[in-house]
């Protein structure tokens, strides 16, 4: 990095929140650093203070209980998530999407929470978590609030998070535990790439739901479909919901087309 800043690694959440409330916009929260440090290097982010939250024990929490649901702490890495047995067993869509996120090395640093907080339209964790009705647990010095993920991300790289707040964890209710699911992602090479467009499908109790990335300013969740809904109908609903753009990665035409293709494939694969 050629941009200079000072580094703080508070040992408790209180301490971290106090720092944030003191520094406000001048501070940036560091967890995995795979977005923050890239942005600082590119000059897109120029914080004066970097608050590393990895020394805060409770942010490392990762737990699943069939009654209580899944808690993914802010500093749980993508690889830790993938290695946590209940994920492959009960949250197939998270597993599939997590395994597609960047490279093995990067997944040792990148966190699902960071992926959500970055709120990029192509974040791999977003549409799967939308399908699972995840909630974002946000803390600040004097409050804790829970926001549905669908409301958390407000636009391209914007969220409801205030500069003095920290996302403590993502909570996934047990509702969809054990649901059959799949994730399909269009990449420009077979190796690691961000999602040019991606579709997640989760099947549950006689219905199924579809989440889509990189096809609108925010990740999308389509309204539930009854099992047996014809593919064309689902594709049509998706086509209506998305608003893809032309960019260096793809045209909107092909993005829209591939959303349809992935829907068909996932419906077949998952048996929706």
């Amino acid at each position: 990095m050629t941009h200079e800043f000072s580094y703080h690694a508070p040992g408790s959440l209180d301490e971290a929140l106090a720092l944030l409330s003191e520094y406000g916009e001048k501070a940036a929260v560091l967890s995995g650093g795979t977005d923050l440090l890239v942005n600082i290097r590119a000059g897109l982010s120029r914080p004066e203070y970097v608050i590393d939250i990895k020394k805060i024990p409770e942010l490392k929490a990762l737990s699943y209980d069939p009654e209580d649901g899944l808690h993914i702490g802010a500093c749980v890495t993508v690889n830790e998530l993938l290695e946590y047995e209940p994920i492959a067993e009960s949250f197939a869509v998270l597993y599939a999407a997590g395994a597609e996120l960047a490279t093995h090395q990067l997944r040792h640093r990148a966190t699902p929470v960071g992926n959500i907080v970055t709120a990029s339209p192509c974040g791999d964790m977003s549409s799967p978590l939308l399908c699972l009705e995840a909630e974002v647990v946000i803390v600040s010095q004097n409050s804790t609030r829970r926001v549905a993920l669908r409301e958390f991300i407000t636009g391209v790289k914007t969220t409801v998070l205030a500069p003095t707040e920290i996302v403590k964890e993502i909570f996934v209710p047990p509702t969809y535990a054990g649901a059959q699911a799949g994730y399909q992602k269009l990449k420009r090479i077979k190796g690691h790439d961000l999602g040019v467009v991606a579709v997640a499908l989760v099947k549950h109790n006689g219905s199924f739901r579809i989440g889509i990335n990189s096809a609108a300013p925010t990740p999308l969740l389509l309204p539930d479909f009854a099992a047996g809904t014809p593919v064309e109908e689902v594709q049509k609903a998706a086509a209506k919901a998305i608003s893809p753009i032309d960019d260096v990665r793809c045209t909107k035409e092909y993005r829209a087309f591939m959303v349809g293709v992935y829907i068909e494939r996932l419906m077949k694969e998952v048996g929706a």
Partner: protein
Amino acid sequence: MKRVQFTINGDLYEREIHEHRTLLHVLREEIGLTGTKEGCGAGECGACTIIMNGVPINACLVLAVEADGTEIETVEGESKSGRLSPVQEAFDRHHAVQCGFCTPGMLMTIKDLLQRYPKPSREQIIEGIEGNFCRCTGYEQIIEAVLDATGQLEEKGEIKHA
């Protein structure tokens, strides 16, 4: 400036470092371990791969201060005994090195891979080294070297004559 301590390849280092500098920068320019390379500085190429606390990471996306108290392994540790490791030897036999710039990162990635899969299949090797760009070799001889190092190469990659 912050004082940090870490172990690199078994040796303890203590340094006063700038807080904004990456671990890659400090390893290469302040500690002088230049085996680990920088290919992009942005987490895309894998040239900077090292092992920190037992897992492979991109050292260009870690602040040196974050490494305080960690155990780090770099390419320089691989032949500390004075002998090449079995993987290094196989790389040598198979010309898995051309310009050599991706090699240190590649070796660390493979070290981790073999800890996870002592006898990785071709697919597992490919999956494992996906995060390390090599612009020279086309990867094939690297894959063969790993297969050979783990005793799985049936036929040696001899050149064919028409």
